[in-house]
């Protein structure tokens, strides 16, 4: 389980998170929604330990992320796969090498087994025969899929998506939504989706939490989000459109 308690973070005097608390239950997908620049990606970076909170704690499987030593943090990160907004694939490596990176750098494993896992994960995201391609040869949607395959390579317990449908056309965005949903059903992975795309949030999430002014102001099921009388949530949801 991931538990965030009273998280504070500011950058150059600009308060981004102001006492954020959130629980992500095992096996569920939680969408964190909010306007651009409200601190959603900052929240994700705290969960994987890329940023240290000014105040508050992030607990992952009972471990306080900010108190972990570097090697302990790296062990914890192997339990979490991250799909970055820009996909963040290493363009000096091929598709297969990108997917294999977490394995080859962290686990003693034979080349044959690595290849097997790479092909299995690429097949899971419905990308076959692309392992030798360069990253520059892929479309935006394919890059997102490779990023998902890379995140899944070490069989993580959690997968964190940072704006997975941003900058994609509606059809590709829907394909990525379907992929996230099918992964949830196939491998029962716990997920956090940070997004401002309400279509995506309603489609993949079991729970939706709204981040506003540095805090979670609403946390409920997709149905509760649609029926809430909270004016801020309503305005955001209606502005975001219906699925």
């Amino acid at each position: 389980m991931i538990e965030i308690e009273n998280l504070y973070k500011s950058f150059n005097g600009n308060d981004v998170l102001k006492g954020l608390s959130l629980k992500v239950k095992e096996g569920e997908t939680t969408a964190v929604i909010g306007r651009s620049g409200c601190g959603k990606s900052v929240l994700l970076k705290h969960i994987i330990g890329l940023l240290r909170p000014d105040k508050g704690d992030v607990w992952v499987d009972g471990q306080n992320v900010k108190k972990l030593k570097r090697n302990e943090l790296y062990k914890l990160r192997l339990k979490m796969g991250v799909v970055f907004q820009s996909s963040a694939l290493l363009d000096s490596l091929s598709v297969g090498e990108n997917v294999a990176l977490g394995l080859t750098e962290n686990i003693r494993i034979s080349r044959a087994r690595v290849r097997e896992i790479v092909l299995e994960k690429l097949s899971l995201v419905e990308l076959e025969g692309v392992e030798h391609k360069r990253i520059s040869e892929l479309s935006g949607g394919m890059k997102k899929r490779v990023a998902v395959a890379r995140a899944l390579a070490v069989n993580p317990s959690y997968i964190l998506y940072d704006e997975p449908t941003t900058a994609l056309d509606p059809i590709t965005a829907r394909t990525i939504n379907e992929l996230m949903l099918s992964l949830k059903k196939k491998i029962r992975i716990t997920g956090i989706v940070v997004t401002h795309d309400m279509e995506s949030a309603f489609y993949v999430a079991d729970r939706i939490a709204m981040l506003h002014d540095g805090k979670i102001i609403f946390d409920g099921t997709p149905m509760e989000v649609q029926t809430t009388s909270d004016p801020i949530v309503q305005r955001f949801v209606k502005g975001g459109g219906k699925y």
Partner: protein
Amino acid sequence: MNKGFIESVFGYIGGVCLFLWTIITKLYQVPRSFKLIVNQIVSMGIGSLPIVVVVSLFMGMVTAYQAALQVGGYMPESYLGMAVAKALMIELGPLLTGLIVAGRVSSSLAAEIGTMKVTEQIDALESLAVDPIRYLAMPRFVSGLISLPILTVISELVGFFGGGLCAVLLFDIRPIVYIEGLRVNYFPHELWGGLLKALCFGFVIALMGTYYGFTTKGGAEGVGKAATKAVVSASILILFFDFLIAWIVF
């Protein structure tokens, strides 16, 4: 002097030292990063070889030409080889190789790592439990230390050859006289001092390139600035260390 300026200077020096220390603490993982280091030696060393060879050839030729022209009438023919050998081994070989590689490699290291930083590739490495300093900076640092002395030796040999061509073709000096001249008044510390400079320049080039890459901020503009700063600072430090080592060794 302005307090902010002093703070920023000490902040910069502290930042570079801290970054260097972080790389040093990863050096024990060299065997694990062997393939990455070899890849960097290929890219940094072998990639720089053509330009180093071309520049060194002309550098040797012009050194021989000027030496013959300026003092040709006052010195024996065999001393032309000696003048070329001393100029190249002590000064020109390491310095020009250092400056050429600084221009080519420092900027490319800063731009490559800087682009990775602004496109979240370094965050992605962290999220995959891969230490970016161990994966990106340390192999480039080690390959800088290995590549520069090797490139410098090649540069000096090509320079000797260029000087010989000039001596034989333009000044009718017999090849054997020129070659014998290369050995006149040779002291081993001239070679080792030059190679020490090359080692130091390799250190500076890799350190500045990776440091500015890892501290890149913003987007494309930030990457451009990082590349420029890497070349400028590497070039200045090369000239500083050139003087410092000359002062200590010779």
